[in-house]
């Protein structure tokens, strides 16, 4: 596959897995004839039929529960949240039944399902369409949380998520669907529980995921010119966190900055910081620094929206401050 857009990489992952396993099917709002709100399932219904690419009524909680029931009885559903935010209406089914049911049933049932879709702050979409649900769901036992960030990892991770026997919440970002990358011709899968080392460095560890990975890369270009040498890690797995990779990096740099798009209160960064303090406190030369979104509903106005989320310049300044002040 030559140069591939991220949404097509996701599409290819779904297509390959559906061809490989007849128990895999897609369901959600406008996934069939319309092709998905971001065209991830475009024309798949022509190849696989209406039952395997099932257009559902606008009934998030119920079609999510239906997927749970289908998964319990041996199918492998992939739910598309038209916008991840809409899955707030499915919180009941995702938390109680997708997340907890295997445990509550004492191992009677498995729930192999993927819940994927676009989230994050886009371009002036307003508060409701700009939500980051990962923080809301990280407290639910039994769920795996995965965030993709490039066409390459999007494809390999989604294929693994579909084959995983657990419920996987798979986070995509509205502003990343048109990223382009050369993808391998041959099939590949990526592990769901491994963080990705984006840039090797020595003086500070930047932990990030999803779109903020790209902001970090932008910031690092500036920082490198100024003589800094940050290490950038894309978490990929937001739950469970890959403390092997994270620990290895911190034992080398002794400084950590978390960069995320979640709100600061109760975000992924909050959990990460607490866990780093639990496990690696003695390794730290400075307190973990969190760069996160402001604790407000995302405003519509473009200037205010930019002020709400972390910008590359803030990452540059945070690294400068942490290293030059020796904190």
């Amino acid at each position, binding site marked *: 596959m030559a140069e591939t857009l991220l949404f097509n990489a996701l599409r290819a992952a779904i297509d390959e897995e559906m061809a490989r396993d*007849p*128990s895999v*099917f897609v369901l959600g709002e406008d996934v069939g004839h319309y092709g998905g709100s971001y065209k991830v399932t475009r024309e798949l219904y022509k190849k696989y*039929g209406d*039952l*395997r690419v099932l257009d*559902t*009524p606008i*009934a998030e*909680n*119920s*079609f*999510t*529960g*239906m*997927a*749970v*029931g*289908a*998964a*319990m*009885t*041996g*199918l492998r559903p992939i739910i598309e949240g038209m916008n991840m935010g809409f899955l707030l209406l499915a919180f*009941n*089914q995702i938390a*109680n*039944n997708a997340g907890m*049911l*295997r*445990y*509550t*049933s*004492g*191992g*009677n*049932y*498995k*729930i*192999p399902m993927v819940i994927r879709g676009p989230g994050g702050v886009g371009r002036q979409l307003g508060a409701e369409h700009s939500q980051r649900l990962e923080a809301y769901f990280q407290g639910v*036992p*039994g769920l795996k949380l995965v965030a993709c960030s490039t066409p390459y990892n999007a494809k390999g991770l989604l294929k693994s998520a579909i084959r*995983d*026997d*657990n419920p996987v919440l798979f986070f995509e970002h509205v502003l990343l669907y048109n990223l382009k990358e050369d993808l391998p011709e041959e099939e590949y899968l990526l592990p769901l529980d491994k963080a990705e080392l984006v840039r090797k460095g020595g003086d500070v560890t930047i932990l990030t995921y999803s779109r903020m990975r790209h902001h970090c890369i932008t910031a690092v270009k500036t920082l490198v010119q100024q003589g800094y040498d940050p290490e950038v890690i894309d978490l990929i797995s937001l739950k469970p966190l890959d403390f092997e990779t994270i620990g290895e990096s911190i034992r080398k740099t002794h400084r950590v900055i978390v960069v995320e798009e979640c709100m600061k209160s109760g975000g992924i960064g909050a959990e990460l910081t607490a866990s780093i303090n639990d496990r690696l406190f003695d390794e730290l030369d400075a307190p973990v620094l969190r760069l996160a979104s402001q604790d407000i509903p995302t405003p519509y106005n473009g200037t205010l929206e930019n002020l709400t989320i972390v910008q590359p310049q803030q990452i540059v300044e945070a690294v400068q401050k942490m290293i030059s002040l020796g904190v």
Partner: protein
Amino acid sequence: MIQERTIPTLPSVNSITRDEGLLLYEDMVLGRTFEDKCAEMYYRGKMFGFVHLYNGQEAVSTGVIGAMRPGNDYVCSTYRDHVHALSVGVPAREVMAELFGKATGCSKGRGGSMHLFSAKHHLLGGYAFIGEGIPVALGAAFQSKYRREVMGDETANQVTAAFFGDGTTNNGQFFECLNMAALWKLPIIFVVENNKWAIGMAHERATSQPEIFKKASVFDMPGVEVDGMDVLAVRTVAQAAIARARAGEGPTLIECLTYRFRGHSLADPDELRSKAEKEAWLARDPVKKLATYLLDKQLVEAGELKAIDRRIQEVVDDAIKFAQESPEPDPSELYRFVFAEDE
């Protein structure tokens, strides 16, 4: 006490053989005896949490599940799930052990009274949140259709039954699932156990149209009301709905008019329901009704029913002994079953 609805009568009920009659009776007595024992054990401090008993509603579980294919068709329940579990064939020992929180329970002591599961018996589970089992049942029904039509499995003609209460029919998942079931003609039957109350909320105070079976019509789905204290009537209606579903003709909504003989849960002081209402319904005890029918029709002799009563008492006593003697879950396995990799 508000005006009671007229109890519906069917033009005719499907006849049963002597053996079928004995099986129905045995299942109902098992349900009743098991629940009475639960109350005793709860008050003696042997089981904890919220325990919702099924006394009075036995004709629904036995009538519907007795008309299904055991271990092949799917059943989905609520927090009031002990008797549904027994009717699908989960051994009384495993249900009781679960209530005692033991490792030998059907949910390995992780679930408790409101979360009984058995994959082996196609019991999709007990669901403690109102309405949340209905979509799960819908998914099992979708799966049957998918296996047949997409995967070419001709044997996949299972029917799924979703049980839930009157109060639950005011929840969105009820309406959403009726829509999808009818839209895709899924092999499912929706069984409403209208016992007139949702904890302390009288049905008439919660809904603009108390005749629940009528709500099917707007989804272009058959809806029937039936005397939920008459196991033969419930069975007759269920048999027709199951046959329709199995033939690919789609879902049916069955409203069973029934009553719970105890409080909402064993923690409920049951102060709102009038004495007159309770007495009127107690007089229509479904277990006695079946016994009378079997004797009147001379299908069985009184001694045979007594023998069943005794045998079931032994089954329940044995379940208690088993539950008491069973081991607690191993504390080192606290995390077991969080993920699929834990078998």
